[in-house]
């Protein structure tokens, strides 16, 4: 595979000769695509060069079916913006290079992404700072003037009043397509969501779609160096991201803290300050409930891939067996109602 990647790079890097790829290794994370790290060295017009890269290749099957072209387009569009993100270099749809489509982007070294790394006792000292930056960056994403960016790959933005219904139908469709057995709890949640649509946002925003601890790179000093995994990015209600970041699934410390970092009250305060967006409790509750349904839909997709033998990723066996805990949380949210949305820590 090193030689094939080297051959590809030789066609992409202007003036590159004698391209050598080393230290190729698959790394965990980004479960919807294979993620590979490698070093490349070559002779250029100005002498020897080397750089570390990340390659994201389409899987045989994965946690969700997403458009790698859209993800690549977001990375490109964010270049030069205030949002920290790796620079994306090349998108290749032709399978002749690596059998399946892929894109290549900058590798940001000396950083971590895994939640387990952030939850390690030695990292507790940076939790407040990472949490503050996480909310500040989310606010900045939602403040982006996306109409001035080249994000046509994401399609047409919905009207504010359509954001919730659009996402609800998207995930209803995934549930019904991927479920392997009847899901009465998800049906109950979908029906409730359909009859309690939230008020529309003041403005449509670029929504990351998977903004959470685990999808950003941070260093030992607590600086977030890059926001990753934009494969579910779309235009929509910014509260969708805030609520998704807050769901129980990502409360890694099992202490109710958003992403294992901040109390819910503090996370919302910081987000409000960064974005200027008010967090209406009923809307937040609606998006949190949808977030849990979305998580279930993603898990169902992985489970079906595993059961049908389209993937042998062990993670896909795990996600399908996470449904009961999601059901418990969904029922809790259905019982607690909108008033719990803002203040539940």
């Amino acid at each position: 595979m090193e030689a094939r990647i080297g051959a590809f790079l030789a066609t992409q890097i202007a003036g590159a000769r004698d391209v050598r790829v080393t230290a190729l290794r698959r790394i965990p994370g980004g479960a919807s695509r294979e993620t590979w790290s490698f070093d490349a060295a070559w002779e250029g017009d100005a002498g020897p060069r080397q750089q570390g890269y990340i390659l994201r290749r389409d899987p045989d099957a994965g946690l969700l079916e997403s458009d790698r072209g859209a993800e690549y387009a977001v990375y490109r569009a964010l270049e030069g913006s205030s949002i920290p993100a790796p620079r994306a270099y090349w998108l290749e749809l032709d399978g002749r290079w690596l059998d399946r489509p892929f894109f290549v982007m900058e590798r940001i070294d000396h950083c971590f992404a895994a939640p387990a790394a952030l939850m390690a006792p030695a990292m507790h000292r940076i939790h407040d700072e990472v949490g503050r930056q996480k909310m500040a960056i989310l606010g900045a994403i939602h403040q982006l003037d996306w109409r001035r960016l080249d994000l046509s790959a994401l399609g047409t933005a919905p009207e504010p009043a359509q954001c919730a219904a659009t996402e609800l139908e998207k995930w209803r469709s995934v549930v019904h397509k991927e479920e392997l057995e009847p899901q009465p709890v998800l049906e109950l949640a979908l029906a409730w969501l359909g009859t309690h649509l939230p008020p529309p946002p003041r403005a449509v925003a670029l929504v990351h779609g998977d903004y959470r601890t685990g999808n950003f790179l941070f260093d030992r000093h607590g600086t977030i160096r890059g926001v990753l995994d934009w494969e579910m990015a779309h235009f929509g209600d910014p509260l969708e991201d805030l609520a998704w970041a807050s769901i129980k699934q990502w409360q890694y410390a099992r202490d109710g803290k958003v992403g294992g970092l901040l109390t819910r009250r503090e996370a919302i305060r910081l987000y409000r300050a960064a974005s200027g967006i008010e967090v209406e409790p009923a809307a937040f509750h609606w998006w949190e409930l949808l977030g849990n349904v979305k998580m279930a839909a993603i898990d169902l997709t992985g489970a079906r891939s595993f059961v049908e033998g389209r993937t042998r990723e062990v993670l896909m066996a795990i996600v399908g067996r996470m449904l009961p805990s999601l059901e418990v949380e969904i029922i809790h949210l259905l019982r607690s109602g909108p008033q719990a949305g803002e203040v539940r820590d």
Partner: protein
Amino acid sequence: MALRPAPDEIIRGVQHSLAAQIVPALPAPYAAAQAGYASHVLSALLALSDGAAQQLVDDNAALRALLAHAATLVDGCAAGLAAAGRQAAAEQDADVRLSTLAPANDRLRALVSRFVPLAVAPDAPAGLLTLLLDALETSAQRRLVGAL
């Protein structure tokens, strides 16, 4: 016990080997993660190994009780659904093979799903939503054994 080691003893041994010996020795992060996930899956299967059939027997019985109760609540507005609920509630599992219990569980859960639109309608029968939430929460809690 007809043959030792029993399935749960085998799973426990393999899971321990994976977690204690293989994962720490794997230098490649991706391989280590895969082996770690496999260990995690085995620990869940171990929890379920002795109780999988009983879990479905209990769940099917609870779902039948739910359907019997729900049928009484919707009799006035959905007689056909009420009749289907009563009929399903009167059935029994033919045996305790997983291949018998699991399809029955699917049928019962599919029928429960048909009560959902009535439960969230503006003119929902009194108590139906609470009945569904209570029963489905108990079912989810029951299925947490062997879940992850």
